[in-house]
C-alpha cells in the first residue's frame, strides 16, 4: 500500500503534474484561442514541416531498418558485432552532438561537397539519425525467433527469394515494423536538439514545431507555446496508446 502510494506520487509529481499545466494553459482562453494559436501562419508552417518530414523519415526507416535488421540477423561478416552495437549510438549520443556530427560532414565547407546545413533536407537527415534504432531494434528479436522451416520449405518448392520474403518473412515482421515506425514517428515529431544547430531554424522554411515552441517560450508567449505543445502531445500520446492497444490485441489473438 505504502509502496504503491509512493510510486504513484512520484510519477504524478514529476510527470503528470507538469503535463496537466500544459493542458490547462493550452485551453486557458478557450477552444477558439487554442485553434487560433495552432493555425497561426508560422505555427502552421512549422507543424506541416514536422509532420511531412516525420512521415518521410518513418517510410525510409521502415525499409532501411528492416533491411539492416535482416543483415544483422541472417548475414555473417567480420565486424558484425561492432556494427550491431553501433546501431544504439543515436540513443547514447546527446542530440546536440548528433546535430554536430552531421554538421561536421555535411555543413559549410563540407569535406565531401554535400551541403545540407540550413535546408529542409537537413531536417530529414537529422531525424533519420536519431530514429535509426527504433525499427532495427523492434524487428531484430522477431527475426531471430522466426522459424526458418517455412522459408526452407518454400525454397525447396522452388519459390524465388522475393516471393519468400513477401509471402512468409514480411507478414511475420509487419507488427514489429509498425511498432518501430510508431515509436520513430513519436520521437521524430518532438525532436529538438539535433535540429537546433543543423537547420538554422528559419521560420516558414526549416523551423520545426519544437523549435517554434522554444521560440514562443523565449518571447514569453506561453499560451501559444502550450497550444502547439498540446497538439504534439495529442499525436504522440495517441500513437503510444494505439501501440499499446495493438500489443494487447495481438497477445489476445495469438495462437487461437
Amino acid at each position: 500500500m505504502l509502496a504503491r502510494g509512493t510510486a504513484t506520487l512520484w510519477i504524478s509529481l514529476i510527470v503528470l503534474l507538469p503535463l496537466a499545466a500544459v493542458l490547462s494553459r493550452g485551453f486557458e482562453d478557450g477552444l477558439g484561442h487554442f485553434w487560433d494559436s495552432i493555425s497561426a501562419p508560422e505555427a502552421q508552417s512549422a507543424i506541416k514541416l514536422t509532420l511531412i518530414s516525420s512521415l518521410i523519415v518513418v517510410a525510409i526507416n521502415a525499409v532501411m531498418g528492416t533491411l539492416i535488421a535482416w543483415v544483422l540477423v541472417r548475414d555473417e561478416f567480420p565486424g558484425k558485432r561492432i556494427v550491431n552495437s553501433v546501431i544504439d549510438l543515436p540513443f547514447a549520443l546527446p542530440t546536440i552532438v548528433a546535430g554536430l556530427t552531421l554538421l561536421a560532414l555535411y555543413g559549410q565547407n563540407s569535406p565531401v561537397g554535400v551541403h545540407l546545413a540550413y535546408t529542409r533536407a537537413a531536417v530529414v537527415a537529422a531525424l533519420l539519425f536519431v530514429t535509426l534504432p527504433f525499427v532495427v531494434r523492434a524487428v531484430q528479436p522477431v527475426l531471430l525467433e522466426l522459424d526458418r522451416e517455412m522459408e526452407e520449405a518454400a525454397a525447396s518448392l522452388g519459390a524465388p527469394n522475393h516471393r519468400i520474403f513477401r509471402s512468409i518473412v514480411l507478414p511475420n515482421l509487419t507488427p514489429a515494423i509498425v511498432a518501430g515506425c510508431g515509436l520513430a514517428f513519436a520521437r521524430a515529431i518532438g525532436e529538438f536538439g539535433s535540429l537546433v544547430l543543423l537547420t538554422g531554424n528559419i521560420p516558414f522554411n526549416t523551423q520545426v514545431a519544437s523549435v517554434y515552441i522554444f521560440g514562443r517560450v523565449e518571447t514569453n508567449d506561453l499560451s501559444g507555446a502550450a497550444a502547439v505543445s498540446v497538439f504534439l502531445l495529442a499525436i504522440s500520446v495517441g500513437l503510444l496508446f494505439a501501440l499499446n492497444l495493438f500489443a494487447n490485441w495481438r497477445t489476445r489473438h495469438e495462437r487461437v
Partner: protein
Amino acid sequence: MTSVRWGLRSVALLYLALLLLIPLCAVFWRTFEHGISEPLDAVTSQDGLHAFWLTILCVGIAVPLNTAFGVLTALVLVRQNFRGKALLNAAIDLPFAISPVVIGLALFLVYAPRNSWFGETLAQNGIQVIFSVPGMVLATIFVSLPFVVREVMPVLQEIGTDQEEAAETLGASPWQTFWKVTLPAIRWGLAYGIVLATARALGEFGAVAVVSGHRNGETETLPIFVQRQFDNFSVAGAYAAGLVLAVLALVVLFSLNLLQRRSARATDGEDAEGAPPATTVFVPQPIEKEA
C-alpha cells in the same frame, strides 16, 4: 543468392557509414582541424569546466533518484494488482513520447517565478526553480525516468516470486528479502537501466535549455555549452565540448555491450532459457496479469 546477400549487406553498411560513422569521425577531425590548443582551451575554460560539473551534478541527483523510485515502481507494477495499474504503467512511457521542449515548457508553467502554478509561492520563500539549478535537475529527472522501470520490469516478471516466498517462509523480513534475493536477481537489468538513464541525463538538451533560460554560464550544462559556443562562432570550442560528450556516449555504448554479454553469461550458467535481451527500444508490451 550470394549476390543478393552481398547487395543487401553493402546497402546496409553504406547507409550506416554515411549516416553514423563517417559523420562521427568528422567530429574528431573538425575538433583538431586547427590544432589542439583552441579546443583544449575551450573545454578547460571557466565556463567549460563549470558546465561539466553542473552536468555531473544534474546526473548525480537525477539518476540515483530514478534508480530508487524506478525499482520501487517496477516492483509495484509487476507484483501488485490494483485499480489504475494500467494507467500508471502507461504514464511511465510518457517521457519517451513527449518532446523535450514540451517537457521544459511544462516545468516552466508549474515553477516559473511569475504566472505559474507554484512558482510565486516558492519565490516568496526564496526558492527559485526556473532559470536555476533545481529546474534543470527536475528536467533531467523527467527525461530519464522510464529507463530503470522498463529494464527492471521484464526481469522481475521472469524471475517470479518463488525465491522471495521461500525467503519469507524462512523468516526473512521484507528488507532482507529485497537486499538478499530480489536485488541480486535483477542486478544486470538494473545496471542496464542505470546506464541508459545516465546516457540520457548526460545529454539532455531541449528540456534543460528551456528551464535554464540560458542567461549566462551560470546555468549551463555541457550540451548547452556546445550550443552557445557554436552561436558565438567559437566552432572549435563547440566541437571540443561535443567530442567530450561523444566520448562519454562511446563509453556508455561499450558498457551496454559489456553488460549484455555479462548478463547472457550469468544466465547461461543457470537453467534459464537465456536472459530477456536488454534493449534500448521499448516497444509497448502488454502487462502480464499475474495470479
